[in-house]
């Protein structure tokens, strides 16, 4: 699929009953991918199969229109039909499939109960909150019993109070309900709660593919590490650690990688200690950094690093989580020169 700005070239698959999360930075091609799957976009070249049915095959000139694909969509915005009640919104799909009025209403009622919105049946979208609308939109997307459900950042537009309940609902209805689905998200938490498997897209290509936990616990790309909330340093595996491009050694525990292989060193920001002067002793990694930003994150403060003048460039973007008291003791401001210190036992080195 070629777009003006980039080319999307991926091969993904979701097993029946599986939820596949697609993660990636903005512009990675996630929405384009969903467009191709739903049939709203025609790829330049490609093959899309839903179950046994080929719905897009450019080589054979096949393009099944969206309404005959059996592919449902729940987007960021609920987009409930404003002129219909919640019940009639849900009954829309079954009615379009030729189900009788009474039966479609009964099915709508059942689904309303299924998404904890039984009391909302007679309301119009304008009389519902954003969270309620999204619940009804989920029920509506499920009503035609789609072979594949596309979830396009379904939690992104909800306010923070409504998000946890909707996430739990999606887990119950989609994941536990064995609904085959492709979930596009920016959030590691959404992927962990909702998805069996994750693919990470960057620049229109799949850079990681695997079980959700594996991918997020052992990130191989800077983007994945960032959304998983981990620090990542790329390099080559060496004895006792990872050799960075500029020749420094990051000590750590190697995990199934051979010396000479391309690898990454990964550690959590909470394992990083911060000093104003260079400390000494013990087998530790001591990294000179310049402080780029101070970001409050709940109970801790995240210090974001930039490369110091004359120092290693790869420390750029590393994060350290420290207590507010520690920040006060350091008495620093962005631009200050600091030392990030990580114990070798906290650093995991794995292949890329």
């Amino acid at each position, binding site marked *: 699929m070629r777009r003006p700005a980039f080319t999307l070239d991926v091969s993904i698959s979701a097993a029946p009953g599986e939820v596949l999360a697609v993660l990636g930075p903005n512009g990675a091609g996630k929405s384009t991918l969903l467009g191709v799957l739903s049939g709203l976009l025609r790829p330049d070249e490609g093959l899309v199969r839903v179950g046994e049915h080929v719905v897009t095959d450019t080589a054979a000139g096949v393009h099944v229109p*969206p309404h005959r694909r*059996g592919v449902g969509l729940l*987007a960021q*915005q609920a987009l409930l039909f404003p002129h219909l009640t919640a019940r009639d919104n849900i009954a829309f799909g079954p009615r*379009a499939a030729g189900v009788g009025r009474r039966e479609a209403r009964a099915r709508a009622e059942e689904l309303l109960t299924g998404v904890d919105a039984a009391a909302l049946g007679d309301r119009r979208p304008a009389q519902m909150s954003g969270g309620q609308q999204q619940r009804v939109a989920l029920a509506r997307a499920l009503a035609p019993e789609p072979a594949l459900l596309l979830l396009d950042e379904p939690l992104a537009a909800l306010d923070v109070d409504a998000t946890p309940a909707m996430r739990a609902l999606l887990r119950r209805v989609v994941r536990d309900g064995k609904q085959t689905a492709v979930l596009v998200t920016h959030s590691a938490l959404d992927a962990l709660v909702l998805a069996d498997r994750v693919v990470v897209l960057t620049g229109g290509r799949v850079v990681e593919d695997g079980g959700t936990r594996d991918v997020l616990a052992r990130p191989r790309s800077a983007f994945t590490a960032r959304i998983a909330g981990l620090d990542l340093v790329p390099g080559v595996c060496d004895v006792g650690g990872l050799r960075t491009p500029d020749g420094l050694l990051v000590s750590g525990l190697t995990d199934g990688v051979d010396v000479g292989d391309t690898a990454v060193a990964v550690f959590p920001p909470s394992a990083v200690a911060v000093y104003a002067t260079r400390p000494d002793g013990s087998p530790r990694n001591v990294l000179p950094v310049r402080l780029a930003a101070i970001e409050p994150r709940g109970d801790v403060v995240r210090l974001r690093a930039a490369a110091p003048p004359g120092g290693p460039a790869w420390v750029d973007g590393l994060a350290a989580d420290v207590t507010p008291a520690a920040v006060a003791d350091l008495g620093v401001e962005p631009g200050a020169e600091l030392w990030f210190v990580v114990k070798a036992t906290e650093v995991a080195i794995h292949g890329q």
Partner: protein
Amino acid sequence: MTAPVRTRDRHEAAVGLPRLLWVPAGLAFALIALPVVGLGLRTDWPRLPELLLSEAALDALRLSLLTASCSTVICIVLGGPLAVVLARGRLPGLQVLRSIVLLPLVLPPVVGGLALLYLVGRTGLVGQGLELAFGITVPFTTAAVVLAQTFVALPFLVVSLEGALRTSGQRYEAVAATLGASPALAFRRVTVPLVLPGLLSGAVLAFARCLGEFGATIAFAGSLQGTTRTLPLLVYLARESDVDAAVALSLLLVVVAVVVIAIARPRTVAS
């Protein structure tokens, strides 16, 4: 906090409305409202019932309502699909087509009437064919009044509806497709209900324009009592002979216009 969302808070301070604007704004309003007041002052109230209930007046009123209703229906039936094609179609040259549709809006109605006459008239391109094939003559009949009104009112409906279609976009239609609705079903059950307010306001504008039509009608349909003499034509005619009757009929047209605005205030004006 229980601040009302829709009504304006009286604690809210006015922001950035220069006082100077009130003067021309007031003048503009006066220009619209005062002539109507003048009409009321000039009216011979005691004779009003008699003037309005004359046979000529009743004929004209009946004819006006009938032809304006017919024309509005034709505008909806033909102009509705045209608006959809203009808003959603993917044809080269659609931009040119759109400009042509706006022509009756900027053309003097008399010119429109003459144009119709030379197309559908006895010697016209279409008129000749109609006469030879079916023995039908259109000019100077009630059908000609309807045709003239439709000609001038069509752009009002098309522009208003096309705007509504563009504003609503095609997101809901995409959702309907993912729910299994064919394009025809999505159009009927999603597009049409969504643009209904736009269609309604367009229809009201078209109806009002039909009711006030004068130039095209007199050029193409003439002024025959009971057949083609609508209210505006009667007002113009009566102005020569009985000024009181003309004023009374004008007042009637004002009342009809106010009623039209009241029952279906066009959204385009309201928002």
